[in-house]
């Protein structure tokens, strides 16, 4: 465009003009990026805001003004009801028991197995590894009935054991640990070995402390996974006294007609049950973002 002019001055002007238009274009691009990002962010965040606000509304208010961001009147009735009419504290207690048992034991067992697969040389290691790979490929929902059959056969039905033990091992966790241990140089352990330290000692006091990032990853994934687990608890227990948060709240949502839609109550329960995972999420944000790219939510 500018090349048609003969003299130097118009040429420079043209170059300046095209530069400024490039700048402008980039600026428009940035503005566009921001507006798109903001719009999507609103779509992603707004539902959660609505949930929190509605938990403080009365039922007629929630039905009549679902969009309003100011509860009028603001009330904590829903929370009182959860405490008084529902066994909410029992659910919290059970979720805590199950999640903590599963998380800590999983971290321990996964790292043990991961270490054996990564470092120890023994006959059958390859076969064991292949089995774990194969097991990972079986979709969880397919296992609901089989697991129930086994839990019942072992006499663990309707106990904490039945709820916890089947969740204790996840093949993905073993994998993460194995891969991590393989990334640690062997030389670290050599000197300890020469000193005659036992294998468990090497694992416990030398390798494990170095594996903290991977352990934290498994801790987060296990905590989130077992806190949010539903199907396993449905098939492993029937007593209401063994209801976890997921099970209790799910049944709150699906059951009992004739008492209105009770959205403030249900949303209050949803909000409360999200808090522990949310805290964990915000604390370990960066680590979760990195870890989850690897072991995707089931």
């Amino acid at each position, binding site marked *: 465009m500018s090349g048609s002019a003969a003299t130097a001055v118009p040429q420079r002007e043209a170059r300046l003009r095209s530069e400024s238009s490039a700048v402008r274009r980039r600026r428009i691009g940035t503005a566009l990026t921001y507006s798109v990002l903001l719009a999507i962010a609103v779509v992603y965040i707004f539902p959660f805001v609505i949930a929190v606000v509605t938990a403080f509304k009365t039922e007629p208010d929630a039905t009549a003004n679902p969009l309003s961001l100011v509860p009028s009147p603001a009330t904590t009735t829903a929370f009182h009801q959860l405490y008084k*009419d529902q066994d909410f504290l029992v659910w*919290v*207690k*059970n979720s*805590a*028991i199950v*999640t*903590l*048992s599963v998380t800590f034991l999983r971290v321990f067992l996964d790292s043990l197995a991961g270490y054996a697969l990564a470092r120890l040389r023994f006959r059958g290691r390859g076969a064991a590894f292949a089995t774990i790979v194969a097991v990972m490929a079986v979709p969880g929902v397919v296992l609901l009935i089989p697991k*129930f059959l086994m839990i*019942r056969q072992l006499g663990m*039905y*309707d106990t904490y054991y039945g709820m916890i033990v089947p969740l204790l091992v996840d093949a993905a966790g073993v994998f993460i640990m194995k891969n991590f241990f393989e990334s640690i140089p062997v030389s670290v352990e050599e000197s300890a070995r020469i000193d005659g330290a036992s294998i468990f000692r090497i694992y416990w006091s030398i390798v494990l402390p170095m594996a903290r990032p991977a352990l934290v990853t498994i801790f987060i994934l296990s905590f989130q996974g077992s806190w949010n687990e539903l199907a396993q608890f449905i*098939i492993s227990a*029937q*007593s*209401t006294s063994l*209801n976890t948060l997921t099970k*209790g709240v799910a*049944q709150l949502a*699906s*059951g009992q*007609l*004739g*008492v*209105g*839609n009770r959205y403030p109550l249900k949303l209050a329960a949803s909000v409360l049950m999200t808090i*522990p995972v949310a*805290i*964990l999420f*915000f*604390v*370990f944000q960066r680590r979760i973002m990195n870890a989850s790219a690897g072991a995707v939510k089931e």
Partner: protein
Amino acid sequence: MYPHRISRTARWRLALAAVTVGTLAVTAGVALGSPAATKATTITALIGSSGPAETYAVKNAASAWSKQTGIAVNVVVASDLGQQLAQGFASGNPPDIFYLGNDQVATYAKTGVLAPLDNLKNVKSFYPSLREAYTYKGHLYAAPKDFSTLALVINTASWKGAHLTAKSYPKTWQQLASVAKKLTRNGQVGLCTNPEFHRLGVFMLQSGGWLVSKNGKTATVNSKANIAAFNFVKSMIKNGSMKLTNQLGVGWGGEGFGKKMCAMTIEGNWIAGAMKADYPTVGWKAVELPSGPAGKGTLQYDGGWGLAQASKNKADAMALITYLTQTKVEMGNAKAFGVMPSVKADRKIWSKTYPQYAAFLAAADYSKSIPPVPNIATVLGDFNQQLQGLPNTDPKTILNRINSELQSILNQ
């Protein structure tokens, strides 16, 4: 490891995480440390409660019996009775006694998990029709505890608003259609009810149809009478004087009725409790359902106590069932949550105490229970599912489908 490298926010965040996990750990620890439930002989009773009133009444009666006999009773309120019962049986550790609907009795009697109750002390005191509803292959498998029937429930204010009087209570389908049309005004629809066999089935009976033939061996769901019944329902839906609750976006007829979305609904005795608790300002009256081409007809819902074959103290459990189906207890239940007693002798007292429920009791003379066919509950479940699409589907399609499903379980 390098504390100086951890920023203040990071430290704060870590502390927060530690506190969260710590709190949960303490909760869990306290819970695990608390003493486990005592394992002395207790009888477990699993109930599906309609609300706090029912729970309270059953618990009260059970504890009164405990005081008399010294045997502890643990009343468990199910959040999903059907599923919990099924899991209880499948796990080999069912509750001793439990609520059992008559649509479930044949299913479980066939699998052999129920203990027969032919030797119950007060077995002769129940209505014969109720005993029959719980009889499978000649044995009684549940002690009837109460029953309910369906009636037409009317919003009295809307009734007056449409210039209708006591004389205009519908006696025929035509009259029902015409009052429904008159009541469809001011944003209110004339009639609303659940899209379920358990409500719309009354039209099948009024039309002279039923699920199975007299001998119980052939499915008759797609009979001409039934097609006529659903065509009638559909004509009301089409002209806008009737809506199903899924069209209104409410959970059940009582909710639509209570929220004044409809002026009439088809419901059972239990609506009394819901109206009192949730919609105390709505005035209502129950009348008998209109007659169809084949006369009067309504559905009956039976509640009973079942006994598990696997129970370890059957004798005590049977004594408890006898106690719970006594006049005194049943009248208490009637008062607490509006059901009708299963004991014949109670009829007079009940109708005297609750004249306003006369329509429900009057219907007991001609009401019908779901036939005791194994697995019929699953077919009826599908019937209910299909009826949700009634406004957009030819009734014949639905009835043909359910007919073949029912026939195939009858053949088994």
